[in-house]
């Protein structure tokens, strides 16, 4: 009903009397969407939305992330970060989550927090059953930048090197990335971190600011 072209059906002379006036001739006087009125809002809104996307793709605008529920894969050819922390933890799924399976709704995860990170050739994919939602960004000189990046992952692989690493801290005493874990949990932290050929299986990623230059979002048969 709403989308049919009705701009020519009647001229706009009908007085706007909401609800009350329609009681007498009630039956057939239905409210309707006037396309021209809708366009008054639709055109600028489309322009703003397009502007937002272009700015995001150029990396001029920070986008804030907060996702999980389903495991997703993140890969990058290189990750450089300052202020690195890592500790174990337990993530709870939403109650009665269909993804719970036989896990009881909990996943054992490693939380990695990086204060400032740059990633090269970032690729993120979610398996939606059959097809993958694929997001790629940051190739060449325009690298992906994130601040206060926190990931909850079940698998992490790559070639890593750390500066000034402290291994075996209590997770509640961490101070290099500003995130503290629970008391009595093993943790490690370092001033800088460099991981080549990074590959993570994540349940959650959050970042205060995530800049994605060269953003591409598409569906694909293959994940990262």
């Amino acid at each position: 009903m709403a989308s049919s072209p009705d701009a020519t059906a009647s001229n706009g002379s009908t007085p706007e009397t909401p609800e009350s006036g329609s009681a007498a001739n009630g039956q057939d006087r239905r409210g309707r969407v006037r396309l021209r009125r809708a366009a008054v809002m639709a055109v600028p809104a489309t322009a703003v939305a397009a502007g937002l996307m272009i700015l995001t793709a150029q990396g001029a605008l920070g986008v804030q992330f907060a996702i999980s529920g389903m495991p997703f894969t993140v890969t990058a050819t290189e990750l450089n970060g300052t202020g690195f922390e890592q500790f174990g933890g337990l993530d709870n799924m939403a109650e009665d989550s269909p993804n719970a399976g036989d896990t009881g709704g909990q996943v054992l995860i490693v939380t990695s927090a990086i204060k400032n990170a740059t990633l090269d050739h970032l690729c993120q994919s979610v398996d939606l059953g059959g097809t993958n939602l694929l997001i790629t960004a940051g190739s060449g000189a325009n690298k992906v930048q994130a601040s206060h990046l926190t990931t909850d992952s079940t698998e992490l692989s790559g070639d890593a090197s750390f500066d000034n690493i402290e291994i075996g801290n209590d997770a509640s005493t961490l101070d290099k990335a500003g995130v503290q874990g629970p008391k009595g949990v093993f943790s490690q932290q370092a001033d800088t971190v460099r991981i080549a050929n990074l590959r993570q299986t994540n349940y959650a990623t959050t970042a205060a600011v995530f800049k994605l230059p060269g953003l591409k979002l598409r569906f694909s048969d293959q994940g990262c």
Partner: protein
Amino acid sequence: MSADARTDDSRDLREAFRQWRAHRPFWGGLLLTLAGAEILLTEKASLKVVLHIGMQGLAGYLLPTMMLLCGLLILFNPAQRLFYSLLGILLSLGTWLTSNLGGFFVGLLLGAVGSCLAFGWLPDQKPRRRLLRREPV
């Protein structure tokens, strides 16, 4: 068509719903409500992390919640639809920044379309020709 096959009760109900729907921007409000719900569903960050990040993280939840409320208000208080739809479109566009790229774009699209439909809706329009013909006399 098969209306006589139905019981009177369900026919009355359907007719009442049709009348109720005719006096408000039904699809606009519904789409905006769904958009808010969709974006909220894509947000599963643990609340602890969100609180750590602070106001910016909270906005990720706040905007889609407001969208949902605006959608419901358009449905149940259609007289104020202009304000709600303006607020709705601003919130929808804002979720691109705060909430997973607007719920992976789906929620943003639904919200924008819903707000525009609600904004363009006018009460008391002459029935369309196509509808007139179909109407039982």
